[in-house]
């Protein structure tokens, strides 16, 4: 059951990214190009995705997930160094080539060698991330 739900969710995510053309790096970099010829598509994708998610969050009240357990607790509004530095590093990489983790996976079948190299580099980055987090925590 749990794995079937994951398949359905992953498939919807992939289909949505394809239909919205969000695996096209030109569209993503075009959105980030606020001082050039700005492409608003990504804003519509974000806005569209937030609508069903907001409904879903509303439905979590006084309920339990279908498979049991608990819904994820609301995180504290804590803006630590990890959150800010992590978001800056991620944004830099995102702007450089126009790929983020979801589209990098969704485009695997047609992204060519470049897409594969990006994915391997991304997974390597994820592997060294705990060390970077520890370094950030160790600084006063």
């Amino acid at each position, binding site marked *: 059951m749990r794995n079937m739900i*994951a398949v359905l969710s992953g498939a919807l995510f992939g289909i949505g990214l394809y239909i919205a053309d969000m695996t096209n*790096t030109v569209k993503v970099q075009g959105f980030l190009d606020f001082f050039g010829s700005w492409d608003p598509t990504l804003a519509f994708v974000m806005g569209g995705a937030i609508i*069903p998610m907001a409904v879903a969050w509303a439905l979590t009240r006084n309920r339990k997930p279908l498979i049991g357990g608990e819904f994820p607790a609301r995180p504290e509004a804590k803006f630590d160094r990890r959150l*800010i530095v992590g978001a800056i*590093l991620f944004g830099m990489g995102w702007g450089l080539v126009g790929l983020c983790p979801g589209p990098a996976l969704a485009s695997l079948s047609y992204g060519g060698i*470049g897409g594969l190299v990006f994915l391997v*580099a991304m997974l390597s*980055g*994820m592997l060294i991330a705990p060390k970077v987090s520890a370094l950030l925590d160790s600084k006063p």
Partner: protein
Amino acid sequence: MIEVEWIWGLIGGLIIGCGGAVYLLGNGRIMGASGIIGGLVDGTGRNAWVERVSFIAALVLAPALLIYFSGRPAETNLTDNWVLIVVAGLLVGVGTRVGNGCTSGHGVCGISRLSPRGIVATLVYIFAGAVMVVALRSMMGGL
């Protein structure tokens, strides 16, 4: 076709949001791409590895099947500069795990529950990305 692109963006976005809603209401989890795959890479998500692999397999295969049956190919238009690709991949990998989220987790799932962390992270990575695009254009004379 250019003037209707935002409609496809909106429709695609609604479908992405439905994917997140299914994952949340069904499994009680946040549909964040970096969290789902990152947990497999560093071992923190070993407990739910089949669920994670199922999600990723569907995420990869669904667009592939859609392209196969619709006959409408997709294009990533990724740069052919290998240095940029590797550096960007490393930054995205490190950044999403250190910051605990990417466009789907912080952006879609975080903003929709008005999570202050999600909203702040999204503003920060969009700002950093925009700065990078400006820097790219001034250094390389184009994207």
